[in-house]
């Protein structure tokens, strides 16, 4: 993997909340077209890491680079425009707007900005991709849980981001929905999207992630190809041992 294919790098990224070190000197690279799993027990700093990358939080130390450009000192909206798109752990819909408009938000203001007909076309394309083309006029309150997640996914996809950050996108789905959800992300992977996935669902991690970074108490304790990482004794102790999986 040459330097040129690295999309996102964290170099010594650290986040302190008072005395608590939520993320401690974290280093990892995300390569183009890969799906990287960011895993670890609850409270290990995964979501904080996503918040640092997307600019919801500022790093206390260290830096984050997008294609060799420093982004860790930029406000969230600039990071989004540069091509980092994220979903939220608890789905965030725009409640007063239709499904179409929810996705339009990403098309109009995201990484690749479109307007008018062109934006509408792109929105419909994304709604087809996530299987919601017939619900374009629906309101978020009329949707099932997984459908709101689909809308959110379409909203982040529509701006053609360089990196997609999915924060427990599969959490809270029933088994059927989970299967659909995994299939959907698999499609994104086949399309060559670059994705960082914070996830707890083991089946999803195994079937979706090319590589994994494992965090525990804010530190990286393992990194490598998924199968190898998941059989690492330290990972099993820290992650699987504490979680009841």
């Amino acid at each position, binding site marked *: 993997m040459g330097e040129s294919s690295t999309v996102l790098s964290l170099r010594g990224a650290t986040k302190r909340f008072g005395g608590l070190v939520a993320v401690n000197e974290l280093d990892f690279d995300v390569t183009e077209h890969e799906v990287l799993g960011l895993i670890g027990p609850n409270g290990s700093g995964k979501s904080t890491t996503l918040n640092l990358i*997307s*600019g*919801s939080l500022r790093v206390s130390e260290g830096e984050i680079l997008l294609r060799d450009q420093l982004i860790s000192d930029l*406000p*969230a*909206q*600039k990071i*989004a*425009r540069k091509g980092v*798109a*994220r979903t*939220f752990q608890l789905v*965030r*819909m*725009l*409640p*007063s*707007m*239709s499904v179409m408009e929810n996705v*339009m*938000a*990403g098309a*109009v*203001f*995201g*990484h690749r*900005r479109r*307007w008018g007909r062109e934006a509408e076309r792109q929105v419909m394309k994304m709604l087809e991709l996530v299987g919601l083309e017939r619900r374009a*006029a629906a309101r978020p309150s009329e949707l099932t849980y997984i459908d709101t997640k689909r809308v959110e996914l379409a*909203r982040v996809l529509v*701006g053609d981001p360089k990196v997609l950050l999915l924060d427990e996108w599969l959490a809270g789905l029933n088994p059927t929905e989970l299967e659909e959800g995994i299939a959907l992300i698999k499609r994104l992977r086949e399309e060559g999207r670059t994705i960082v996935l914070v996830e707890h669902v083991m089946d999803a991690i195994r079937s979706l992630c090319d590589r994994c970074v494992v965090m525990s108490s804010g530190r990286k304790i393992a990194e490598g190809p998924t199968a190898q990482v998941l059989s690492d004794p330290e990972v099993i102790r820290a992650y699987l041992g504490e979680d009841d999986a």
Partner: protein
Amino acid sequence: MKSQEYKSFGTALVLLVIAILLPWFVGDFAVTLAVNMAMFTVLATSWALFSGPTHYISLATAAFFGLGTYTTGLGLDHLPYWFLIPLAGVLGALIAGVIGLATLRLSGVYFVIFTLGLAEMTRQIITFVQNATGQKGILISIWFEEATFYWMLVALAALIFLVGWLIGRSRLGFALRIIGDDEEVARHSGINTALSKVLLFMIPGAVAAMTGAIMAPRYGYIEPLIAFTPMLSFQVVIMALLGGTGRLWGPLVGVIPFSILWEFLSASFPNQTTLLLGLSFLVIVYLLPQGFVGLLLKIKARFGGGRGY
């Protein structure tokens, strides 16, 4: 969608023509009432342009209105009246921009208190300066017919509706709606939320200042309590909420009945106006949280079978 737009545009044009012709067909009292209606249409509509989508309740109308009346009051000796109106608009927009930069990063509650405090503070400062210099109020030397004030305000109202319509179709308008729904999503979608809010806050600032500049000669004599009356800020909020801020024409629907009701109440119970204002505020918030617009859309959705948008 397109034909719908032509229809709305046509309706607006007809209403504008009726509004312009009105003074020739009604009596003096009605024209005086119409001046108030036009003034509140201007203030409430521009207020709703910002506060409708963002849900930031601004009580700064009186501050900008007062700024406008004083622009006319102090400027008439040096500049023509017609020049002072746009000048007040520019000043209002600039000051709104500065205030916006300072406060719109704060959450809504702080913003409400700040805007209320701003109007009061400006009033106190001017009172203080006047007391210190021994000056009382400012006498305005020019005078117009009621109908002239009315036509100026109708022209300003038409301008605001046009601006509001353009914003509604623009990226800025869409950004504001997203911000109003979820500011976090807005930011992570790539919207500069602070800048969008500041830009839009400048509009009611400019408009209220221009309205104040237009209205100053009507008062003849301006002093802080007239120019910066806090009642004005609250009336604007009530009328806008009564009409509903979800549509551009919403506040107008609130302004017309409220102005008539207010005329009646303030004539019949001159000492209880503030109390009645408070009561009407409570009634509106409880019974019509979405205003007449919300009510109409609900009725339409129920009987028309269609959606309310």
